[in-house]
């Protein structure tokens, strides 16, 4: 079936639905109310086909060995995880009905839901969960080692209980059980096989609300409703068709015309999202990225001149008008950042804005003064120094960001020469050779500072050749200590206190000038609601999507 035919089919379904609505029996009303009595048949018919755009095209559907966002967006509908997460990052049940953490924080017990079956009809047991976590994810998932390294043993006392024993408390571990991060695989299909080249890698069989049906490479992935899903009445739609359109303006146009219903995470350019948000047929949300919480920033090389002097780093941090960037470079799909931990951690208490702030009214004067003190006075012609500003090769907004920063620095008397390189060269320069002065960058905080923040500031994370680590080569005994303490502290209050001190020290030292918390836009057709219902957003399972 070609994409075109596919679209016609979608259109037909839409017609049928609008017919139903016109004739007074609005299928959508029942669906959104979660009611099923009046003929679940007609309801099932009007479930509709959701057309989703992912970008770029996926090379694999084996989300158990990839952290790629498009892969996650596709496979998460098929593979459920033990837990789901609310927007405030609090866990809620999925395949695990409940969980408990012992007082000392060293035992996590999951009660696995009964009556759940895989798409091949075999029942799900705690052994599947144990196998997936211990023998697949902890071994071959790119973040699996980091997520689960503290598990000393996993036990299955009965067929629906999983007990994880930890060598030390790990408060961040409970955040790693989403279907995107830790998909639960069928042991009976995978055990004893070559997992990396498994036939089901690209024909996934999970317990999720949608069954994998077909993947026409280069065209579409088709997922159909799992009639035996554990949650009664879910999923509410019949089918998800996932496709890729390489050109961004075409993607926007297709969404605008209603030929595709949902796309996000960089698939829709920020300025287009701002325009699409004004259309009555579309809805644009900033939610669903809490699990990623990306921060756009400037990384200083704290070991080379002039950025080995914190006054120079502070001056540059002062020079950046974060509000302007959020509004004009990210078109409102960003908010000013205050420090290394995203404000998405406000609910969990880990975030604090009681830190040294750089968004003060007299920021520029302070910056000038700091540069004078640091020994970089304005020379004839008003210039203080020349630096090279590397720009993340990740798209247009980064070029604009670089140009904007260069201009702000120019007003301070710092001549910044912008350097754009290809991704490989830039990664090598930043993370292997440390051959840079200051570079734009963006990094995910992820579901817990242990996962996303420690890697950027811990001295043990200065690992030449490993990307997305401590490129600033910042290190201080106290911040290392705070991170070590917070990593194993089960008491949320004490843990928050460690992180608050951590944020205070770092904002004073500014090894990184945090600029914006990026809020990706997700564009959804108003025909389909409730797709984005968890902190992983598009990588959620869409079980509550309703048309």
């Amino acid at each position, binding site marked *: 079936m070609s994409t075109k035919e596919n679209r016609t089919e979608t259109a037909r379904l839409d017609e049928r639905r609008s017919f139903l609505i016109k004739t007074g029996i609005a299928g959508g009303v029942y669906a959104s109310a979660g009611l099923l009595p009046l003929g679940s048949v007609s309801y099932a018919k009007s479930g509709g086909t959701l057309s989703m755009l992912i970008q770029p095209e996926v090379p694999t559907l084996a989300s158990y060995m990839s952290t790629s966002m498009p892969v996650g967006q596709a496979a998460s509908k098929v593979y459920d995880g033990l837990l789901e997460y609310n927007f405030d990052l609090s866990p809620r049940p999925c395949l695990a009905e409940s969980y408990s953490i012992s007082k000392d924080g060293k035992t996590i017990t999951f009660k696995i839901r009964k009556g759940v079956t895989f798409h091949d009809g075999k029942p799900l047991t705690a052994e599947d969960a144990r196998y997936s976590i211990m023998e697949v994810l902890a071994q071959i998932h790119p973040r699996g080692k980091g997520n689960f390294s503290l598990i000393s043993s996993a036990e299955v006392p009965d067929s629906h209980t999983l007990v994880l024993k930890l060598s030390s408390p790990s408060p961040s571990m409970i955040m790693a059980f989403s279907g995107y991060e830790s998909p639960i695989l069928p042991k009976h299909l995978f055990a004893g096989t070559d997992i990396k080249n498994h036939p089901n890698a690209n024909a996934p069989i999970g317990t999720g609300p949608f069954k994998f049906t077909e993947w026409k490479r280069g065209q579409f992935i088709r997922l159909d409703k799992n009639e035996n899903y554990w949650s009664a009445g879910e999923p509410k739609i019949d089918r998800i068709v996932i496709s890729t359109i390489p050109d961004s*303006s075409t993607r926007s146009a297709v969404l605008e015309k209603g030929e595709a219903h949902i796309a996000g995470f960089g698939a829709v350019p920020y300025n287009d999202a701002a325009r699409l948000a004004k259309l009555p047929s579309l809805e644009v949300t900033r939610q669903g990225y809490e699990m990623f919480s990306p921060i756009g920033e400037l990384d200083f090389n704290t070991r080379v001149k002039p950025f080995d002097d914190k006054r120079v780093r502070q001056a540059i941090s002062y020079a950046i008008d974060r509000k302007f960037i959020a509004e004009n470079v990210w078109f409102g799909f960003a908010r000013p950042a205050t420090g290394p931990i995203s404000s998405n951690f406000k609910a969990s208490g880990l975030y604090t804005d009681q830190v040294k702030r750089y968004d003060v009214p007299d920021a520029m004067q302070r910056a000038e003064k700091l540069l004078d003190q640091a020994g970089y006075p304005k020379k004839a012609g008003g210039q203080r120094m020349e630096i090279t500003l590397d720009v993340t090769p990740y798209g247009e907004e980064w070029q604009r960001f670089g140009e904007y920063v260069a*201009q702000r620095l120019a007003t301070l008397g710092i001549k910044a020469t912008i*350097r754009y390189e290809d991704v490989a060269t830039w990664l090598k320069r930043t993370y292997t050779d440390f051959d840079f002065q200051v570079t734009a960058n963006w990094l995910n905080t992820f579901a817990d500072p242990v996962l996303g923040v420690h890697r950027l500031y811990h001295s043990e994370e200065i690992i030449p050749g490993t990307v997305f680590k401590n490129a600033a080569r910042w290190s201080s005994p106290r911040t290392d200590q705070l991170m070590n303490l917070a990593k194993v502290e089960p008491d949320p209050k004490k843990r928050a206190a460690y992180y608050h001190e951590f944020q205070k020290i770092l904002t004073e030292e500014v090894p990184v000038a945090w600029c914006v918390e990026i809020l990706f836009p997700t564009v959804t057709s108003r025909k389909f609601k409730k797709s984005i219902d968890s902190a992983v957003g598009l990588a959620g399972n869409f079980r509550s999507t309703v048309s």
Partner: protein
Amino acid sequence: MSASAPTNSLSSPTFRNLFFRNKGASVGLVIFLAIVFLAVTAPILFPFDPFSNVGDPFEKPFSAFLLGTDQLGRDVAAGLAHGASTSLLLALLATLVSLFVGTMIGCLSGYYGGWVDQLLMRITEFFQTIPSFVFAIVLVAIMQPSIESIVIAIAVVTWPPIARLVRGEMLAIRRREFVEACICLGMRDAQIIFREILPNILSPIIVTGSLMVATAILIESALAFLGLGDPNIMSWGFMIGAGRSFLRDAWWLCAIPGLAILLTVLSINLIGEGLNDALNPRLRKM
């Protein structure tokens, strides 16, 4: 001048008449001079960095700013003026390099013939078989975008036609009596090539070269459009590339530099036509 055959010197009295007899050429020259004037006066008209944020974002043309502002509040008119000098300078430089390389190779190839010709022409063909714009992209991407890499990339992809043209002309003249006379006089090869033959084939080179300036502007703009321009230098291609996302909301960001490229390329082509008329009168009669 030395013992030589008919030449169409630039100083010939008929040159001006022939050039201006072509109405298009006159118009082209006027437009081109206006653009050159804009480029030269850019630092006086807009004595600031064209990247600087001077106003609110997306100001419409003819409001606070003559041609409006872009996404970051940068003055489009300033960008246009500063971009004019970038585009012209780059194109001129690239064309000169390309002409130099192409002429050298063409001369050697055509004059010496034999294995030299074989070797040089195979090399030329090698360059010609690669689609020129794709080749330019690859070169700039490898060398990292900067003025030098862009000039080199444009020169590398544009010299082969010149080499072939010069070689052809060279072959035609190589066997003429005046060349053989030079050889009999014992003149060195370099003297014969550059003092005797080259002046005779200058006119087609000039015409091709003039058109090549237009090609170079287009290549530079296309590279900048794709984000492969020098990120620290304002150019028309950069303006279009940065503005294309806003085609529906802020048409002037693409339309104005686009128009500038159109006019410049058109004017250069018109001038090229005029030069052709003036330098190759025989062709014109046909």
